[in-house]
């Protein structure tokens, strides 16, 4: 409420972040951390399997280089931009929370950045010196060693970022020690790392497998060998990925129980959790099948056969992210700030005076009979819009219609009664922060939404209206008052001293 409210009323603001972030996870697991060691191993095999008078098997090396080129292009364009994109989207959808997190964890992100810069430089070197390194055996072997070094370094970036993910979820961290170390001691850290490492290798491998059907012709020895090597790689990592997934799957509810921010028994979490189980089984089994086929009948493999397991493997990664993010609710910063960007400690003030009075940007600082719907709209924007749209994805009309029955006209009183106590029944929802009048206005607005199909636009399209109580005029007076109070108290001290 301190910022103009950017809003996407069909897509849903969270989904904007999710799309960007999950794309980024696909790329950093499957095309970087997991892919580079896969590639380096293949490059090494090219040298090992070449004749005594050759530096490397050129046909094989060219194929591996092409695969790396795909990884290079995707990571340095979409990979880099989705990484920055997470910052950009989070800062327009959830500015108060990220601004708070940055003030506390600046160092953690700065260190992560230094590691990233190094990784970018290393990837540039690895890829751009590839062809030149084929000129001598010494250069080639150095290049391969460099690839292994890059693989380890890539993994280190993952180890650090998982810590950052950890401290954002950790119960006690915010109020106690503000350090990166806490990210490492978070109960979810080891399970998450033990899941992500082999899974990244798995996803990198299945993606490489797919690429080997693109860069080789069918029924050739080259394809057969590429497919076989990809399959061996996958079969080494798949069991570890499965074990890691089960360990992480078990650790998630434990983390939630410790968080005490959502009841493990909530249905919404249970639904995702169940789906996760099926996707783990589905993804791992299809990947295993195609890998076993790749070893047993490598010449029969076609692109279309590999595509489904590849997509499932990526889906496997993606759904874990959804479940992990669920743990936060109803907070965005546990114990400090709710997902609606309001601090828990400010709730008594909002409940007493209403929330509209303190909104920097609102056309209705107070609810009156004549502005009820407009005030309700502003309350919705301030307290609900971070997670709900009006008529789009996760729409407020939709969730109420699911509860009361589709098409049934809303009863304002029932909506108000439900909203007042919703944080008790749906523990992933933050408590409604406003006054009774604001609650009634909101309920009237929600009914209006059902009746009219009305939508709202974000500040990025509509602009903002400044609350006169939070404008320069009002604050100048406030500053005068504060300075006078300070002067008065200083005078008092001077008098008592005398």
């Amino acid at each position, binding site marked *: 409420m301190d910022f103009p409210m950017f809003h996407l009323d069909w897509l849903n603001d969270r989904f904007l972040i999710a799309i960007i972030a999950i794309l980024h996870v696909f790329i950093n697991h499957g095309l970087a951390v997991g892919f580079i060691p896969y590639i380096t191993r293949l490059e090494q095999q090219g040298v090992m399997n070449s004749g005594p008078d050759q530096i490397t098997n050129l046909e094989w090396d060219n194929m591996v280089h092409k695969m790396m080129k795909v990884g290079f*292009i995707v990571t340095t364009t979409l990979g880099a931009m989705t990484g920055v994109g997470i910052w950009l989207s989070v800062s327009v959808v959830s500015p108060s929370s990220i601004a708070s997190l940055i*003030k506390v964890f600046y160092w953690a992100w*700065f260190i992560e950045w230094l590691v990233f810069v190094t990784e970018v430089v290393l990837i540039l070197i690895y890829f751009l010196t590839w062809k030149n390194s084929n000129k001598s055996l010494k250069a080639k072997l150095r290049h391969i060693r460099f690839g292994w070094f890059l693989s380890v370094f890539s993994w280190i970036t993952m180890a650090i970022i998982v810590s950052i993910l950890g401290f954002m979820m950790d119960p006690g961290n915010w109020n106690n020690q503000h350090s990166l170390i806490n990210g490492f001691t978070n109960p979810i850290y080891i399970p998450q790392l033990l899941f992500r490492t082999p899974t990244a290798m798995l996803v990198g491998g299945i993606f490489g497998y797919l690429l080997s059907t693109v860069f080789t012709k069918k029924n050739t020895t080259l394809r057969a060998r590429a497919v076989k090597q990809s399959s061996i790689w996958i079969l080494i990592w798949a069991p570890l990925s499965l074990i890691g997934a089960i360990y992480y799957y078990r650790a998630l509810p434990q983390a939630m129980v410790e968080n005490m921010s959502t009841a493990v*028994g909530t249905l919404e979490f249970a639904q995702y959790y169940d789906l996760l189980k099926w996707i783990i089984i589905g993804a791992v089994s299809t990947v295993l099948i195609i890998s076993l086929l790749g070893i047993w009948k490598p010449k029969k493999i076609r692109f279309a056969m590999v595509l489904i397991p590849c997509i499932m493997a990526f889906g496997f990664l993606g759904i874990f992210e959804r479940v992990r993010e669920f743990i936060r609710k109803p907070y965005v910063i546990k114990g400090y700030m709710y997902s609606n960007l309001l601090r828990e400690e400010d709730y008594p003030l909002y409940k007493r005076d209403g929330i509209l009075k303190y909104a920097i940007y609102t056309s209705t600082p107070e609810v009156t009979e004549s502005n009820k719907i407009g005030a309700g709209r502003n309350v919705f924007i301030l307290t609900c819009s971070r997670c709900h749209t009006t008529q789009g994805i996760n729409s407020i009309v939709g969730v109420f219609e699911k509860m009361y029955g589709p098409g049934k006209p809303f009863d304002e009183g029932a909506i108000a009664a439900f909203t007042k106590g919703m944080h008790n029944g749906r523990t992933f929802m933050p408590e409604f922060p406003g006054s009774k009048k604001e609650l009634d206005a909101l309920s009237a607005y929600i009914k209006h939404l059902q009746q009219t199909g009305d939508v709202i636009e974000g500040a990025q399209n509509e602009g*903002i209206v400044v609350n006169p109580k*939070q404008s320069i005029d009002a604050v100048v007076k406030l500053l005068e008052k504060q300075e006078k109070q300070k002067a008065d108290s200083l005078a008092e001290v001077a008098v008592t001293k005398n």
Partner: protein
Amino acid sequence: MFQLLQINTPVPRDIPLPLPLPEWLLVALLVFSFLLHIIFVNLMIGGTVLTLWCQIKGLKEKDYHNLAHEISRTITVNKSLAVVLGVAPLLSISTLYATYFYSATSLTGGMWIALIPLITVAFLLTYLNKYTWHVLDKNKPLSIAIIATATALFLFIPLIFLVNVNLMLFPEKWGTIKGFFSALLLPNVFPRYLHFIFASMAVTGLFIFWYMGRKNYPFEMYFEKLTRYEIKKKAYSLTLAASVAQFIMGPLVLLTLPTKGFDWKLILVILSGAGIALPAMWWIWKAITGNPENIDRHFGKIVFALGVTVIFMGSGRHVYRANALAPHQKLMAANTAEFERLSKEARENPIAEQVDLKIDSTLGPVAKGAALFELNCSSCHKEKEKLVGPPIVEMVEIYTGSKDKLTQWIKAPGKKRPGFPQMPGFAQLSDEDREEIAQYILSIKTK
């Protein structure tokens, strides 16, 4: 009119948390990491523009065609470094100026998010241009179209950044704009933009001078007619011409800058920076007009001097920002302090409404159960009709005589009936509270 403007200036509250580092250190990190980032952005943009220019010229002269390819190969590295180096200034400005920066980016949010696809596509196009170079030898116009599109994107994208770093300085304008395009027209975005474009060309000229002048650069492999000296002379000329143009653009920026950030310190910093560029330009002139074998003589000094110019200009930028925002930051601090005071007061004196249970003692032994039901259950269950879930009268029918099953259900409800949404569990209530609720429910007469 003045009065209206006053009312429209918002004074948000600041994030009430301390800075993670001393302010001067954060500012130093911000300014220096930004300059490092912007230099690579300069090279990326300048490199793309030069590639396009050389490709067009290369339609007639083969050497320029090859020169284009050689320059395009530098874009790959420079663009990646430009992006990754952008993170530190982004982090630092978000720490120092969260309210201003995030307000501006939210107000232009559509275009701000559009940065992601726009930059991704621009990058992919530069790769496409590089990797289809030989394939498109017979279709040069298509290759030119690819790099021209990338160039157009790279010339547009800086405006998005500029609009935001400009808008963040003027809270009095936040209420007057609607989205990116209206913010684009605020002073003094366009002069700053032109200043930036010329700077990109100047920096790129120096880069090309160095890149193609390196001993281990196999110049003769790529060029038949053009000599190393000629290329270096052209590169220097580009830097000189762009720098001369900056002596028009610079004053234009100063003259169109809104007054509120001005002070003598700013003038001193900017004029010093401009002044140090003069000897650099003189040395470039001597190198271009002197003997070919002396062209490298002043290179180190030129880079140093222009580097100092860049540092002064980057610092001046910050001085302007700090000046422009200082009065508003004071007001923001006052508003923040007042809010914190009010919040503390409300926390320490919670109103009666905070007490949750309204126990009606006339209800006798089920009074507490009734109050708990009202608080936890009444939003979905009515006495006689369906609201969200079945009414109490139905519960009485099912559970009379098996109160334990009812308390168990309340704790962890089972499978939902068709036509009813799933009931959430109330494991967070105590066993006693669930007992009370069950007792109340079962006490209702169904008639």
